[in-house]
């Protein structure tokens, strides 16, 4: 088998493979940076909770019009936003912290979603929604992903400075500006948007993987915020490419393959990264004289 056959032919010869690669790589452009901010804000599990929360909306869309892109996307986005807002409101107006209220709402949401899907669909449909079908991305889905990523990148650029300030010193931001709370909400909106963008490809549960794993891995290599975002995008793209290759050659499920490659990169970064376990042990004794 030549290199061409091994590395390029699957994407050149089969339209569905090319579209899958394009979809995953476009998605990672915004999912990477959003994931970086999630990890820096110590909201990694919030991403996970939101991923569950979009299920009933997607399921409602599915109930109305079957496995169609637009209704499921809009439904998922609405459900995610509602859960994010409710959790935020409960945290603001009660003694419960945002993480507990978020957990409560996403569990309710998840149960509701599975029940909705079971009302009409089969287990196969449920698997589609939960774990996605990256190989079934059609042109409509690609356009949708492109639109979502464009909106996310513009949104992120607009709130960038406030988001950095909100992460770095929230009480200072409160003292000079009222932007903190709206910025938090816009950011949650972007998280939901990217999860919704990812769920056609990877499903509601694995979409968060393309967001968190590259971001978490990037942190073991670089210091700066921009560098972290760039590296996360790179790791996401590499994971998408090799994940799809593995899925093609070994005939395994593609979505999980992508996330597993990202997981491998994360594990390798954790151990061998410049700021990872091995390096920081090896060189902890080295120091300058002043």
């Amino acid at each position, binding site marked *: 088998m030549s290199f061409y056959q091994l590395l390029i032919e699957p994407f050149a010869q089969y339209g569905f493979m090319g579209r899958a690669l394009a979809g995953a790589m476009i998605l990672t452009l915004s999912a990477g940076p959003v994931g970086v901010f999630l990890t*820096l804000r110590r909201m990694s599990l919030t991403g996970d909770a939101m991923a569950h929360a979009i299920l009933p909306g997607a399921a409602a869309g599915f109930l109305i019009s079957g496995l169609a892109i637009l209704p499921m996307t809009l439904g998922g986005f609405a459900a995610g936003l509602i859960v994010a807002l409710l959790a935020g409101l409960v945290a603001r107006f009660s003694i419960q912290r945002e993480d507990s209220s978020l957990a409560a709402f996403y569990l309710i949401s998840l149960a509701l979603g599975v029940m909705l899907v079971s009302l009409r669909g089969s287990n196969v449909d449920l698997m589609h929604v939960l774990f996605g079908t990256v190989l079934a991305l059609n042109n409509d889905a690609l356009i949708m992903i492109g639109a979502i990523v464009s909106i996310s990148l513009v949104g992120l650029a*607009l*709130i960038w*400075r*406030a988001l*950095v*300030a909100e*992460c*770095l*010193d*929230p*009480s*200072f*931001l*409160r*003292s*000079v*500006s009222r*932007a903190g709370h709206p910025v938090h909400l816009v950011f949650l909106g972007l998280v939901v948007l990217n999860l919704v963008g990812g769920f056609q490809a990877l499903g509601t549960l694995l979409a968060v993987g393309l967001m968190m794993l590259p971001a978490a891995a990037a942190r073991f290599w670089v*210091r*700066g*915020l921009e560098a*972290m975002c760039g590296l996360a995008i790179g790791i996401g793209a590499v994971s998408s490419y090799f994940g799809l290759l593995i899925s093609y050659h070994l005939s395994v499920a593609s979505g999980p393959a992508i996330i597993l490659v990202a997981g491998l990169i994360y594990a390798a970064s954790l151990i061998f990264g410049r700021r990872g376990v091995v390096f920081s042990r090896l060189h902890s004794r080295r120091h300058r004289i002043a």
Partner: protein
Amino acid sequence: MSAIIKLDNLTLGYDGHPAVHHVSGTFEQGSMTAVVGPNGSGKSTLLKAIAGVIKPLDGSIIRGSDWRQGMAYLPQSAEIDRSFPADVTDLVALGLWKQRGLFGGISRADAERLEAALQAVGLAGFERRGIDTLSGGQLQRALFARVLLQDAKVILLDEPFTAIDERTVSDLIGLVRRWHGEGRTVIAVLHDAEMVRQVFPQTLLLARELIDWGPTEAVMTRENLRRSRGMTEAWDEHAPWHEDGHNHGHEAAQ
């Protein structure tokens, strides 16, 4: 001199328990006031209320027109996330927020002011240092540089010299004096009575109730300090509400 902040029968607290009880008085424009008192006497709470972080339970804070030109508030334990990948410049440049807003860039003049601010606090050369590598004193210097950049008419400092070495303290005191000389209003919560006597012309002595407020030498008397220490930190869960027959002037406020 005109009033820049007026406290009118101000009561502050948490869950209905007063931490600051019926305090009235005036901060003059350009004054430099130390807020002193034992632990739990409501000093930080008072500063938070002046900064607008918490709302009064009763009474009010009346802010003069100068207020709109900006207030800088340095809380006791800043909620800074030291693990966030930011360098000293990123942190200090937050002080330019009012000028830059969400989208404005840093102009050349701003960059020069930033450089001058770092110089003034003795952090020249630290521009690219990550904030996770700073010592407590260096971080406090950086935060003072940020206050410098905020160019505020009113500066609120909550125990700015706690756990800071002598040299840093004397450098930062120099800055506070400079602000006073520039006609800014400075209000600082402090513990060091010696420093208060040497540096601050005005003192507000608080022990939940206002003990005394005026020129430092008149306030920091043995008798006043003894009275402030007599204050109990007790937080009586079953203390009666004022409305139930305790007449402390609530009627006047209503």
